[in-house]
């Protein structure tokens, strides 16, 4: 409790400012996801359909931000080149 703001430190009502939410939701993932850069043809389908915005274009490559990728695998299903691979760490029921 000690790290939380006191009554006086809090504003009148419950408000929040952008940039404060930082929890690494990538740790929800039960699998590992990897992009095979050789197979990727930059169709960008994985970029737009990633619900977490975790795939970014960086230095001419598509990069998976594993801090936030929840491992849903929409990117794998949407990739026409089969360039994204999943390795399960935990078997789901």
């Amino acid at each position, binding site marked *: 409790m000690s790290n939380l703001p006191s009554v006086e430190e*809090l504003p009148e009502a419950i408000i929040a400012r952008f940039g404060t939410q930082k929890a690494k939701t990538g740790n929800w993932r039960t699998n590992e996801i990897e992009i095979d850069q050789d197979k990727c*043809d930059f*169709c960008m389908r994985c970029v737009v359909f990633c*619900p977490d915005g975790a795939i970014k274009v960086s230095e001419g490559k598509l990069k998976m931000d594993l801090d936030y990728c929840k491992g849903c695998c*929409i990117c794998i299903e949407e990739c026409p080149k089969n360039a994204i691979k999943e390795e399960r760490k935990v078997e789901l029921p």
Partner: protein
Amino acid sequence: MMEMSEKIDLDQFDKEEFLGPSLKSCPGCSATIVARFALKALGKDTIVIIPASCLATLLATNTQTGIKIPYLHALFECGSSTATGVKHAMMRKGKENVNVVTIAGDSGSMDIGFQALSGAAIRNEDIIHICYDNESAMNTGGQLNSCTPFGARTPDWPLGKRLMKKDAPSIMAAHNIPYVATASISHLEDFYMKLKKAKKIKGFRYIHVLSPCPISWGYDGRYTVEIARKAVESGLWMLYEIENGSFNLTYKPERRIPVEEYLRMQRRFDTLTDDDARKVQEIVNELWRRYEE
């Protein structure tokens, strides 16, 4: 697997991101896709009002938020009425250009939120309403609502719904508002184009997006986009817009796939008999027959 040679030109979408990471959505959730592209299209001079829903819940917690533009978490039934007040304040304060947008679920739009929505629409308030439709009251665990389709089972209706899905876009069109459109998260360019168009129109604008939910619909989250696409390709979910009363089909499946290909991917249709599936197919056929006429 669908034919997917289609490349997506990123340049058609505005670059700025208004949703940060750390959103507390389930893996494979499509609500964040709806919000991400809606906000990209509308831009930074936007205020978003979201009544109680998954989306309202997953964006922020306590004093932490993952959304960059002003966002008000509204009461469940008060999305459109709260937005009405906000828009009038903007007009009063000389900020007419601020887009006021409500993003509500199907319950917050068509059930508990319907009175306020209908009221705002008939007053032709200068608001954009986006209904992201996951066809159940999902933030409470996927209970049956008026947008649950025929045959789908829910935790509170385990034998499958025997009633029809509410035709939300037609109801909204009957309010004679300047713009009504349907969309699907699988057809992002189409959705985005409609948002951009809506942004330019004054008055009440309504966009109804099919937004599959892996938890409620019973499928692996990896198929979220594929399922939405099958809903469109089977003809079950028609993509159209009604601008000032004139109907325009914005996407026509080249060859409609059997609707069962869509239905049988989802555990919520486990109790759907073959006869029921044929009934759904007939409904779809009739929808397109009416359109062709």
